[in-house]
């Protein structure tokens, strides 16, 4: 994500308290009392406890947590379907929480649309009339709103279903209608509340893929709530993990997996299939000791190997461009032959990858030669780091013996 893009939504010190004695509960919360203390003293439940975050324009932001974590509530505070107790929500720098009811209606009609888990379609209307509903509420003329609705229907792939009633459609199709309805208003922000949670797994995957496609085309800012970590990782540019109304951590999937901020997040992400998320960029050993082609001869190479304790080193040219690897045995032979350069012993037929390659994609590169994998810049082909086979095996297996043996066998057969 480029940091230069403007902030679309800013949430500042957002607090939501359910119950009658909100004032007292808010005071207690600000004094640092715990959720349970507040509940016993005031019978108030803290729904959201001081949420702070920015969502960048065009970002796919996922709020994830288990049921009761406050994630859907937080989402509803963004368009004030639920009134926050304290704090501010800014959209395009405009404080939503200060707006009058009339202004708020305008925000909902033009700037933010929402997609719901249970679709929320009107059963007595056709697909077309459902999709045009937002424009109808806005007071658009019939022909204009139907033209726009038809366009949205095409966008979500419901061509030919305009005149059916929602009850005739499958769950996945109904959610497409929900999505089309949200898109018809041409909002800048899409709020999606467990939008795919009610769908069966195959349809869910299909809808996720299509949503990602739409997002890259339409460049909407998406705030997506889910309880499914795999979904969060697949969709989110960044993920906020919530527990008991508190945002435990915000970061990219990889940041959260490799560097969980709290024990809760750590426990949560344990189950995830890391192989598809951890990339070479994370795994690589940065700024490795290198052999400079033309500068270091076999003797110099051997000296470097002795100090680092490694039996294989990458070779780069004077531009830092990766050339290949030299092994210690070859260097010894070469030194005996009193050669000046490593040209003859340089192995160039070796794997080189970019930082975004995942562990899963790297696994086929494991071989009996146990050659490390070079990580290079895509354009300049400069060496950025190396991934040793050991670290790759460890990452892929997480010390599971069975997995290690399978990998070993696989490597020996290669």
């Amino acid at each position, binding site marked *: 994500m480029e940091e230069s893009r403007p902030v679309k939504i800013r949430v500042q010190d957002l607090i939501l308290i359910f119950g009658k004695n909100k004032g007292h509960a808010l005071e207690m919360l600000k004094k640092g009392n715990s959720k349970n203390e507040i509940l016993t003293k005031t019978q108030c439940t803290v729904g959201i406890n001081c949420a702070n975050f920015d969502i960048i324009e065009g970002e796919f932001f996922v709020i994830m947590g288990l049921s009761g974590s406050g994630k859907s509530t937080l989402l509803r505070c963004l368009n004030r379907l639920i009134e926050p107790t304290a704090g501010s929500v800014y959209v395009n720098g405009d404080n939503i929480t200060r707006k009058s009811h009339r202004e708020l209606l305008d925000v909902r009609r033009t700037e933010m649309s*929402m997609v719901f888990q249970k679709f929320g379609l009107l059963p*007595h209307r056709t697909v077309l009339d459902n999709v045009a509903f937002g424009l109808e*509420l806005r007071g658009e003329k019939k022909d204009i709103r139907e033209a726009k609705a038809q366009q949205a229907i095409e966008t979500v792939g419901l061509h030919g279903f305009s005149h059916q009633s929602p009850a005739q459609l499958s769950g996945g199709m109904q959610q497409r209608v929900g999505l089309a309805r949200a898109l018809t208003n041409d909002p800048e922000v899409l709020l999606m509340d467990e939008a795919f949670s009610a769908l069966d797994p195959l349809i869910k995957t299909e809808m996720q893929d299509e949503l990602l496609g739409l997002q890259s085309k339409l460049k909407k800012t998406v705030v997506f709530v889910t309880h499914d970590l795999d979904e969060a990782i697949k969709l989110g540019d960044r993920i906020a993990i919530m527990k008991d109304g508190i945002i435990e951590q915000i970061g990219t999937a990889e940041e959260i997996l490799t560097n969980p901020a709290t024990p809760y997040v750590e426990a949560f992400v344990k189950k995830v299939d890391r192989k598809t998320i951890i990339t070479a960029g994370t795994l690589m050993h940065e700024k490795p000791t290198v052999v400079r082609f033309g500068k270091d001869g076999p003797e110099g190479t051997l000296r470097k190997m002795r100090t680092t304790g490694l039996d294989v080193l990458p070779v780069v040219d004077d531009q830092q461009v990766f050339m290949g690897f030299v092994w210690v045995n070859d260097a010894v032979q070469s030194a005996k032959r009193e050669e000046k350069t490593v040209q003859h012993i340089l192995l160039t037929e070796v794997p080189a990858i970019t930082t975004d390659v995942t562990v899963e994609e790297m696994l086929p590169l494991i071989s009996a030669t146990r050659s490390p994998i070079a990580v290079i810049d895509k354009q300049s082909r400069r060496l950025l780091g190396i991934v040793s086979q050991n670290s790759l095996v460890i990452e892929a297996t997480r010390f599971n013996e069975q997995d290690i043996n399978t990998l070993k066998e696989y490597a020996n057969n290669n």
Partner: protein
Amino acid sequence: MEKIIDIGQYIAVAVKWLMNNLRPFFDFIKTTGNAGIESMEWILVGTPFYITIGLFAAVAWKYAGRRVAVFTLMGLVLIYLMGFWEETMQTLALIISSTIIALIMALPLGIWSAKSQTANRIIRPLLDLMQTMPAFVYLIPAVLFFSIGKLPGAFATIIFAMPPAVRLTALGIQQVPADIVEAARSLGATQKQILLKVELPLALKTILTGVNQTILLSLSMVVIAGMIAAGGLGEKVLEGINNLDIGLGFESGLSVVILAIILDRITQAFGNRINR
């Protein structure tokens, strides 16, 4: 047993006060109400019987199917042949007028009690009272306010027949799924838009069940209203009772039943057409 608390006395005083102080108001209602009922009656009685029967049968055919249409045709012809056509049309006029007035009051009350807890807490016991109080009791204030005739008959009928429409309207609105209402709110719908475009359309089937109940209760009350000279089939039934004329009693009673079945089946069919 001796009376310790005399609630009846207070009610009587209140009714008397209303009579004395709101006389012009009651007179106005009586005049306009009677005019309404009588013009309805004039239309129904004045239309040749074969046209009315044809219309009913056609509506039944279109909305409720062939069997109901055949029953409607035969039933109404039987009523005509028994010689109760005019009385039946008088009764029908009274039912239609009462039902219209009852619904005009019931729908807003139902919507209000669905939306407001306070309103619900006030309206519900009132409805209980209206429904469980023996129907004959309403005849007394009706006569005191409006003397005898068609309008007091309609007055008693409206009180007796209104509650199910209020209750079912409230129920229908409360049963609209919260996620649909929330979706409408998220799109920027105002309260009025939510009511008109979401809640009422989705509650329509339940509301129509209430309308059906109101019509049937009107019919049963209209017969009782025969005791205060509201005319129609009620008076014939009463005549049968007074003279111990089993034939007359049965025939007029049968006409009531036929009318009830026809009205029930047709209004139910309207409800079932909204099959979502």
